[in-house]
């Protein structure tokens, strides 16, 4: 076909067949349009209401929670023990970056230049996860890099795919210091153990909320309710006292060693805790790390269950959760009770034959040859069991039990820490002659360290029982006070007169009784030792303790030390590790607390009583012939 022929063909007229075909095509289109209009009406009438609701319902709630800042925990002088810091996580969104070809290079380039990432690594990450929108690439990125990136990114529309997520990290500047008092924060932001748990509600604050909604005109509105910061806790803990105590415990562990050691330092005038420590302090910044308490060679062989168990043990606060028989430190309480009840007088004397017959049992004294005739003070100084049994018998079981509860035994003290135990007393109905006798010197019932410390505080301060506490003040982040706990007095336990006599006797005990190693040169120190044999008795395992205070004339510091199973067998039943540890701590914390040594002792000393003592340094527990064995069948479990 040549082009002339073709041109002729192209000038052909529109034929009727084509007109007809076009008309049909037009009618088909009309029919389809009719169908579509029908569909529109059908959709509206059939689904109009439900779909309209669906449109509104998927609009109504679009909210996002804003993290609140957890309050800080401070020591009594304002030193920060725990604080929260804003952290930024870098989130990479490969899906967004790969969405457009022209995003890829500028976005990677910006990350390399402003966030300092490795180009190859980022490229691999993006191409390996093309469908991911949320990859936490860096935790805790520093703010200067982020702000530089943000500044650059805001001017470049092709730089995308990186987000910054804000979160608060909990920081403990002194890692393991006072770990049992402070506790730690879980990944979900709730506190575990210590103050973090007890005051979790106060510390956490109120998370904010950012949400969008539709107003009456169906216009989208955005509302932001800012997060409210948590309250701060001002504790009664003194950073330096705590530090000294923990150092001394560590020294003791390094030189002598023991299974457990607990130390409480308290202001006896309001039962506020200055320091509370044990030998199992852990790193609060890594609370799950067992390294703090166990050698790594041991951890390697632990199963996961064992590790979990060890962690629970490590996190437990020995000073408030563990119970034990207090031993002779309790004698002070028995004497104070009897004096206060007028069952005995300060002038009374007692006779010790080396044993007493009680309820058919022969209960030995710590000196099996007997202490002979003793004044009331001497019975404490020499820690005579026989005298104490006699005193308890005079007091009677009802009064004895009344005073036990009055001093807070058998119930939680209410200290503001979680996990407190209440201890176990022999109930009044079971408190027969024998049980009363053994209870008088602190055996056959269980107490916690904080109970003994609080009871001693009430005796030393002149008879007011205060609820022991760790937090002095709760305040907002702007320092306005929400509540304070300065006056936590609960009840009068004994009279001032009784208290004064006991202080004097305890001073004598340190000066020339069983607690002489607790002396610190230049200070008037009072105190009482204790040694309790653990069950089963034949294993000869001991809990030794010392409760002391200074200065005797105006008590400012109370220290209570419990050492469970001293590692050195030579010393295992001796209270001297406890008294020596007390002396080494007191020597440092007293001057720090502004209590300076004084050569002149302005105190009434009854020289006659000292003369009565045959051997000043006699410690009954060092005597291997010590017959002190409790009768069988008096286990606390028999109650």
């Amino acid at each position, binding site marked *: 076909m040549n082009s002339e022929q073709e041109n002729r063909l192209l000038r052909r007229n529109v034929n009727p067949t*084509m007109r007809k075909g076009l008309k049909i095509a037009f009618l088909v289109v009309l029919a389809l349009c009719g169908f579509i209009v029908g569909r529109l009406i059908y959709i509206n009438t059939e689904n109009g209401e439900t779909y309209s609701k669906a449109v509104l319902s998927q609009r109504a709630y679009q909210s996002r929670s804003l993290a609140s800042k957890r309050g800080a925990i401070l020591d009594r002088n304002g030193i920060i023990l725990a604080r929260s810091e804003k952290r930024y996580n870098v989130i990479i969104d490969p899906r967004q970056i790969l969405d457009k070809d022209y995003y890829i290079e500028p976005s990677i380039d910006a990350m390399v230049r402003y966030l300092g990432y490795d180009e190859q690594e980022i490229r691999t990450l993006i191409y390996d996860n093309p469908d991911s929108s949320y990859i936490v690439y860096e935790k805790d990125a520093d703010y200067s890099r982020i702000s530089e990136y943000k500044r650059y990114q805001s001017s470049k529309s092709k730089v995308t795919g990186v987000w910054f997520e804000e979160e608060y990290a909990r920081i403990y500047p002194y890692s393991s210091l006072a770990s049992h008092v402070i506790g730690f924060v879980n990944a979900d932001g709730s506190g575990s153990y210590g103050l973090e748990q007890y005051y979790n509600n106060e510390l956490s604050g109120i998370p904010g909320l950012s949400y969008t909604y539709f107003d009456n005109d169906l216009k989208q509105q955005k509302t932001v309710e800012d997060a409210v910061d948590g309250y701060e806790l001002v504790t009664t803990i003194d950073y330096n006292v705590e530090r000294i105590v923990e150092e001394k415990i560590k020294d003791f562990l390094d030189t002598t060693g023991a299974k457990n050691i607990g130390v409480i330092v308290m202001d006896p005038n309001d039962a506020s805790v200055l320091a509370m420590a044990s030998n199992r302090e852990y790193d609060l910044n890594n609370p799950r790390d067992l390294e703090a308490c166990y050698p790594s060679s041991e951890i390697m062989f632990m199963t996961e269950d064992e590790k979990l168990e060890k962690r629970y043990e490590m996190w437990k606060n020995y000073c408030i959760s563990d119970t034990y028989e207090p031993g002779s430190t309790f004698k002070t309480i028995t004497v104070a009770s009897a004096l206060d009840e007028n069952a005995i007088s300060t002038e009374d004397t007692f006779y010790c034959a080396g044993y007493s017959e009680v309820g058919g049992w022969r209960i030995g004294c710590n000196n099996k040859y007997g202490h002979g005739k003793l004044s009331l003070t001497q019975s404490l100084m020499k820690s005579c069991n026989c005298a104490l049994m006699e005193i308890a018998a005079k007091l009677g079981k009802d009064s004895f039990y009344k005073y036990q509860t009055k001093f807070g035994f058998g119930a939680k003290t209410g200290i503001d820490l979680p996990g407190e135990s209440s201890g176990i007393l022999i109930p009044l109905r079971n408190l027969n002659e024998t049980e009363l006798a053994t209870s008088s010197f602190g055996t056959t019932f269980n107490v916690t360290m904080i109970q003994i410390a609080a009871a001693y505080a009430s005796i030393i301060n002149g008879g007011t029982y205060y609820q022991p506490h760790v937090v002095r003040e709760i305040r907002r982040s702007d320092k306005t006070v929400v509540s304070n706990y300065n006056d936590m007095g609960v009840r009068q336990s004994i009279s001032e007169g009784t208290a004064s006599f006991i202080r004097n006797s305890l001073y004598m005990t340190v000066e020339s009784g069983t607690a002489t190693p607790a002396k610190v040169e230049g200070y008037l120190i009072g105190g009482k030792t204790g040694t309790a044999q653990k069950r089963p008795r034949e294993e000869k395992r001991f809990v030794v303790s010392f409760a002391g205070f200074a200065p005797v004339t105006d008590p400012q510091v109370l220290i209570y030390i419990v050492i469970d199973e001293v590692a050195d067998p030579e010393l295992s039943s001796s209270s001297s590790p406890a008294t020596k540890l007390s002396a080494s701590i007191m020597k440092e914390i007293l001057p720090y607390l502004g209590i300076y040594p004084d050569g002149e002792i302005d105190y009434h000393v009854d020289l006659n009583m000292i003369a009565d003592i045959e051997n000043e340094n006699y410690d009954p527990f060092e005597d291997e012939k010590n017959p002190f064995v409790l009768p069988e069948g008096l286990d606390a479990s028999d109650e």
Partner: protein
Amino acid sequence: MSKTGVRKPGAKRRVVGSYDISLLLLVVLLCAFGVVMIYSTSYYNADRYYSESALYYSMQIRNLIFGAVAMILVSFVDYHFYVRLFFKSIKPIHALYLVCMVLQIIVAVAGYSANGSSRWLNVGPISFQPSELTKICLIIMSAYLATKYKGVLDRFKGFLPFFVIGIPIIGLVGVHDLSTAVVLAGITFIPPIVVSGLKRYHFVIAGLGIAALVIMITTIGYRQERLDVWLNPELQDPGSQTIQGLYAIASGGYMGKGLGEGLQKLGKIQEVHTDMIFTVVCEELGIAGAVIVILTFILLLWRIYVVAVNAKDMFGGIICTGVFIHIAMQVVINLLVVTNSIPATGIPLPFISYGGTSLVVLLAEMGLVLNVSKQIPEEGVADA
């Protein structure tokens, strides 16, 4: 002296050299409406992602200017130019066909991915969709072939040239973009059928085509997913744009929520300013607005139909038929998709949906129709 049944004896016709003004007005109306709807549907997303709420609006106006220029230029070029000898034995339509073929090959091999299918070509700062150019090319090509082989069209042999020309290029497009391939097939194969009237072999061809379509839909993964959405829109992921589009249509009622008051464009419907724009027309302007839009399209198609049947010669008439089929298919497919009458597929609504290449090519096609209308002989003028 008229041989056409449409022209009534004695009716006044426009003089040679004038455009079909009502056609032009309808096009302007649709484009203006499209720009308004694009602003309404896209300001939220544009602000959210690009911090510039008028972004798509201003880009569509730029596209409109390009399109208007293309339409005016094309309307001044005698439509016979495309099939006249241009250089040695090459005609412009041949050259255009070759260019389209090359572009489709490039886009198939190296085109970059948008929404899982390669359809775009980047030329400097402009993203260009070659398949749109292919549409206008095939319209002219099909008209040329139908005129040339009119004598043998009532036999299968007459249909062969359309296959030879159409199948390779439609196949190239169909690999990535089935719905556009369907439109291209319509543009290429329906005009010869219209010209010759329905013949028995046409049914065979239609049957084969439908079979091929079904096989392609059912064998390719994401198309199967779309089938599931079509059958049970409410059981699917609530994020699917089909159900969100239906929410929009159903919440509009008869009178709509008012222009600009729609909620579904606020991040719920993807592609809301392109393929799904009609759902927001329904939401904001109601069934009333939707019917007016559909009527406008019908009027436009009617004007094209009138130009086609009154064309100076068969070649011009078939060009208009091709344009008619192109617009009719896109309108119908788009509306069937948004009403979930057929499975979802990406076909924009002519003149209204956002899109550069599509709008420019559509307006160029209008230029073609206008040129044909300009050459309609006045009453009494011989058909030469």
